[in-house]
């Protein structure tokens, strides 16, 4: 059974537990994610959603348990470049440098995260940022900055997306746009893990929800 799980799932994790500030955030959490699936992690504030995402992204170590990528454990003793290359992580901080323009930010990401060589103007225009490409990002509104940050999702070749609250500060049209992009990514065999307060189930039939219970 375990072997079966391991071979079909892209990312899986067993018996994860996380302790922060001497508080057990969660304990014995199992995660499996196959290609084409969306995993929605929900829970109250402070339930440990972000911590779980960071563990799954390989940024933090679980106190117990193990994360497997394509059946291979992600150990911190060796670099896991294969996993890192198939991952696109955007945390609740956008990663947009406010002194630089949207174009300059994209240019940096293109080198850093090995994005597709596409016309940055076109991508930014899709996101409704036409005409705002070359003013410093600190002049943009919070929602527009978020769009700049999410522009990476239109260019990335990564299979697994891990997104922390991607919909915050976005308006309805941008949310719709983003959800379309999610759908396309899932259809192409990608996988997404995200946290959000939006209901995801109606639009995404392949989605599952993992509820983290706030505990003392």
């Amino acid at each position, binding site marked *: 059974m375990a072997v079966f799980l391991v071979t079909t799932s892209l990312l899986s994790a067993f018996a994860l537990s996380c*302790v*922060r*500030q*001497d508080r057990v955030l969660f304990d014995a959490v199992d995660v499996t994610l196959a290609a084409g699936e969306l995993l929605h992690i929900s829970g109250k504030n402070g339930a440990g959603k972000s911590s779980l995402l960071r563990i799954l992204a390989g940024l933090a*170590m679980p106190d117990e348990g193990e994360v497997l990528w394509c059946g291979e454990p992600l150990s*911190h*003793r060796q670099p896991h470049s294969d996993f890192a290359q198939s991952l696109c992580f955007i945390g609740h901080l956008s990663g947009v440098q406010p002194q630089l323009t949207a174009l300059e930010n994209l240019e940096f990401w293109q080198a850093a995260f090995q994005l597709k060589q596409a016309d940055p103007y076109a991508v930014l225009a899709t996101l409704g940022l036409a005409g705002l490409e070359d003013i410093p990002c600190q002049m943009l509104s919070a929602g527009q900055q978020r769009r700049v940050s999410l522009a990476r999702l239109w260019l990335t070749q990564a299979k697994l997306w891990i997104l922390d609250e991607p919909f915050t500060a976005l308006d309805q049209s941008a949310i719709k746009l983003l959800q379309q992009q999610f759908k396309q990514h899932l259809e192409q065999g990608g996988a997404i893990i995200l946290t959000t307060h939006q209901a995801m189930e109606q639009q995404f039939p392949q989605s599952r929800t993992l509820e983290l219970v706030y505990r003392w």
Partner: protein
Amino acid sequence: MFKWLDPYAKPETLYRICGLWFPWLMTLAVLTLLLGTVWGLGFTPADYQQGDSYRIIHIHVPAAIWSMGAYSSMAIAAFIALVWQIKVAQWAVGAIAPIGAVYTLIALLTGMAWGKPMWGTWWVWDARLTSELILLFLYLGVIALSGAFADRQMGAKASALLAVVGVVNLPIIHFSVEWWNTLHQGATITKFAKPSIDPSMLWPLLLSILGFALLLAALTCLRLRTAILLNEQHRPWVRALAQQSDQKGNVPQTNAGRTV
């Protein structure tokens, strides 16, 4: 190769082992130190040059040796913590650092007290004293860094990394200070030349060195126990321990009236 060590890395096991060892180590350390001190103070002849002031050697040298020894053992623990991700090793860094800092401080103070009759001033920029002073700064850095983070585990990891960086730097610092000293104060060194040690003086010195080592081990056990409890406080075994100590009546039961 080191598989047999694995059970000792388990916090609960280590907690019990340290608890078992601590009283023995502490008793032995106190006995050895007392014996070494009494012997060194009263039962050895005075140095023909330095008179009775040389008796400070019985604490200055052991403290200086083990201030370096504590730093190396701390750095070894830190290396283990960083490479093999073993948590108890990471806590051991924080447990050893204050002991090492106190040893360094002792080496400095006794060095000054020894220097006053020998050199005529409390402080001389002598290579050994200067190195000890810098060692104290390194210890203080490790201690300060481990307390500077909101997340205690992150502080422990960062200070482990700093300890490893420090141990790489320590020989470089030591040799550069020695070189600098020959450049600026060549004359003072000969005054402080090693006394040709008579066996009658050597034995109490060796006893004191052993005593300081035992004390280092004993205090590390004690402090590591505290660190394990502090960091494992969410685990069932620590909770059970805390409950036991509670039932002994140390803490008044405050929640009796409220749960109704």
